[in-house]
């Protein structure tokens, strides 16, 4: 190990942070306009963008807990995961527009709709405005508590308190169970209930798997930034990127596996309560986006990540990771937008026939800038607060021994 044990963040991190804030501010202004002119689209777009960055934060927390339990060389990226997971309080704040826009997004929040619909009446004990908010509050309190406790113990570890090591493992064990269960219910609340008649038991896995992939892609991007600068330039090895690449490949395959399974089972059964979800997504122009996702969310990253060199060389891997983040966003568009018509009205909100069809709104570009800018600002702020290497990590020696020579 080098004599420098501060592992201070590189000089130009502040510039990135300031830049992120500017992007976020521009995005916010654009969103404010959007809210004025097209409030329906604003809430929908905000939801999509919000879920992307929430996914990075939560996925990072999940991977961090897996790392505490499993060990492994990819633990050198722990501080990136920790900084991402410490953005969760900001995500709780950014959830507010969704709470405000509940009636615009979710049909079950309209009592008159619920009264006239036997299915919604049946689901009302779960799908109602008060319980929705209570659950959201519960998720955020739980997630934030876990993320900050992990982070606090991690700082104690830096200060030499080795008694936290076992506590980190205990909390991670319980935390993973908590995260998986709450994320499943969050996926029902925030996404599945956009079409309140539809259900799929696999949906929670899809949601969690997507978050893991987003988190890995983001970690690759940040780590590529770090590996080009002191002090991490000498510490992140090709083998470490290789591990992130392999994990990304596994998550890309999982995404395809879950989606294919869900599609095949619902398509083959062709049941009235299930099939509308896919009819909405394989007709009216959305089918092109579906094909796009099959190619660019699966086939292309899968082929690229098979290559050993692409995984080991950060300057190549980072492009795959950037592309993955983009398709993650498009995947979320696919989950949300086909439930709305081109005017931004939820298709299940109004009685009578009205058809959806492919559309994009300029807010779909503005919202990710707003949420992403603010989120990245928070992330860089958090990243700068700690040494970039968890230098007292009990698995660290093993991590750094894994040299790239073989």
């Amino acid at each position, binding site marked *: 190990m080098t004599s420098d044990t501060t592992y201070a963040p590189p000089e130009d991190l502040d510039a990135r942070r300031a830049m992120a804030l500017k992007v976020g501010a521009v995005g916010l202004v654009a969103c404010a306009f959007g809210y004025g002119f097209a409030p329906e689209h604003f809430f929908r777009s905000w939801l999509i963008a919000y879920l992307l960055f929430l996914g990075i934060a939560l996925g990072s927390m999940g991977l961090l807990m897996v790392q505490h339990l499993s060990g492994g060389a990819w633990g050198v990226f722990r501080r990136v995961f920790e900084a991402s997971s410490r953005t969760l309080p900001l995500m709780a704040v950014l959830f507010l527009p969704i709470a405000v826009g509940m009636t615009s997004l979710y049909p079950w929040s309209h009592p008159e709709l619920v009264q006239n619909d036997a299915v919604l009446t049946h689901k009302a004990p779960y799908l109602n405005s008060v319980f929705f908010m209570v659950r959201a509050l519960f998720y955020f309190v739980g997630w934030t508590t876990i993320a900050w406790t992990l982070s606090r113990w991690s700082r104690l570890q830096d200060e030499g308190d080795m008694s936290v090591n076992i506590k980190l493992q205990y909390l991670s064990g319980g935390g993973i169970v908590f995260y998986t269960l709450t994320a499943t219910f969050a996926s029902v609340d925030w996404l599945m209930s956009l079409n309140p008649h539809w259900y799929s038991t696999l949906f929670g896995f899809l949601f969690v798997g997507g978050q893991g992939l987003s988190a890995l892609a983001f970690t690759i991007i940040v780590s590529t930034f770090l590996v080009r600068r002191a002090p991490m330039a000498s510490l992140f090895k090709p083998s470490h990127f290789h591990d992130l690449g392999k994990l990304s490949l596994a998550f890309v395959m999982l995404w395809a596996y879950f989606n294919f399974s869900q599609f095949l089972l619902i398509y083959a059964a062709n049941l009235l*309560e299930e099939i509308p979800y896919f009819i909405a997504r394989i007709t009216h122009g959305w089918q092109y986006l579906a094909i796009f996702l099959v190619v660019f969310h699966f086939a292309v990253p899968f082929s690229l990540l098979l290559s050993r060199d692409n995984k080991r060389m950060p300057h190549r891997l980072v492009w795959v990771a950037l592309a993955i983040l983009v398709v993650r966003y498009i995947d979320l568009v696919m989950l949300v937008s086909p439930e709305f018509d081109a005017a931004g009205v939820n298709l299940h909100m109004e009685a009578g026939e009205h058809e959806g069809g492919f559309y994009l709104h300029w807010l779909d570009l503005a919202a990710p800038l707003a949420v992403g800018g603010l989120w990245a600002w928070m992330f860089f702020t958090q990243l700068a607060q700690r040494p970039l290497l968890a230098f007292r990590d009990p698995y660290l020696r093993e991590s750094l021994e894994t040299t790239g020579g*073989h």
Partner: protein
Amino acid sequence: MAAAPGHSHDGVADGGNMRPIPPVIAPGHTFESVTEKIGGIVLTKRTQIGWLVGFAIGFALLMLMNMTIGQLLFVGIGVFGNNNPVGWAFPIINFVWWIGIGHAGTLISAILLLFRQQWRTSINRFAEAMTLFAVACAAMFPLLHTGRPWLAAYWLFPYPNSMGLWPQFRSPLIWDVFAVSTYFTVSLLFWYTGLVPDMATLRDRAKSKAGKVIYGMLSLGWRGSARHWHRYEMAYLLLAGISTPLVLSVHTVVSFDFAVSVVPGWHATIFPPYFVAGAVYSGFAMVMTLAIPLRKFYGLEDFITMRHIHNMTKIMLVTGMIVAYGYANEVFFSWYSANMYEGYMMHNRMTGPYAVFYWSLIAINACMIQLFWFRSVRDNVGLLFVLSLLVNVGMWLERFIIIVTSLHRDFLPSSWDMYQPTRWDFAMFAGTIGLFLSLFFLFIRFLPALAIFEMRTIVPEAKLQPEQHG
């Protein structure tokens, strides 16, 4: 607490108060002692009395299977308790149970190899053998459930016959034929490829003429040259790559057997990952059930160490928790779906005539496995043996619940009926256990149950290298 002295390669944490991780091989072993110990089990002339007793039990049950098959072919498929509406009971339950057990072998041999998990080394050989035998047992059921297995060729395979009969390609059952036969073929190749260098070791060490000849033929002319090793490593890695998707695909297709239908309790999109997790879970339980007596009776505690026991328990905990998630998920969505048939299905499972099996299943697979969180449980080998047997029971009950409760009361109350297995159902199930035990006992007597040459790579001698490079 300070780290264990002599930091070893296997990741003992340094500087922390982490509890020490047991080694993958007990200290003090050399190339010679490993070869002697594992090869000795096979090459000894003296057959142990314990082995004879165990094999006799297995063989007796195997004879029971033969008798059942005779009865089945003579009388017909009516000897089983299958009825209408439960047209598909013990044969498919046992098929899925056995196929699931097979999964641990492939996971250990392929995925853990690709992830460079060194602890796989001493359990991979017999886990792979277990896979093969389990798949063989599984294959008995669909074959015999056809009632006339000699006609199965054109029922199961797309065989161009003069009657113009083709299988229904849209049915997952026919996908299953391909998935399972691919799985068996690749597993067999994988297992045999790994055995070749050990066969050569046995050939060289065999005292008897027959041993020399038989092991000599099985070793395919292996001389251990650098070129042989190079090709061997290449082939083994390739086979691992090919096997990896099979770990997922086989049980995914098995889950499609149910989930593609529209039967309440079967048609659930979570079935594929939930079945795969359940398969790995039951597979590791079976590896544990076999490994614990094996290490005890043959004194292999140095090779199958507490490290292996711990890791296997942890994998069972993870996969078991996914299975438990599946149960919770089913309960929530049977309500959330607002579908009366789904709702009734869950109500019937919990309070219907088979409720006792449902709650036993929950007690084992959702409650009991929480014990695996505790280190004291993971250290208690005797208890783990009992728990691993219970997991096998729990996973059998899971298939029973899924299959029988969904079928016996479906949409029309007028067609509801109860299912009662007959003694021939039980005889057939016990018979396949006999087949499995017989094959496994023969395997440990005549083939090296642990990979000798791979074990040699993890003894300290193998680590003595010139200056580390890189």
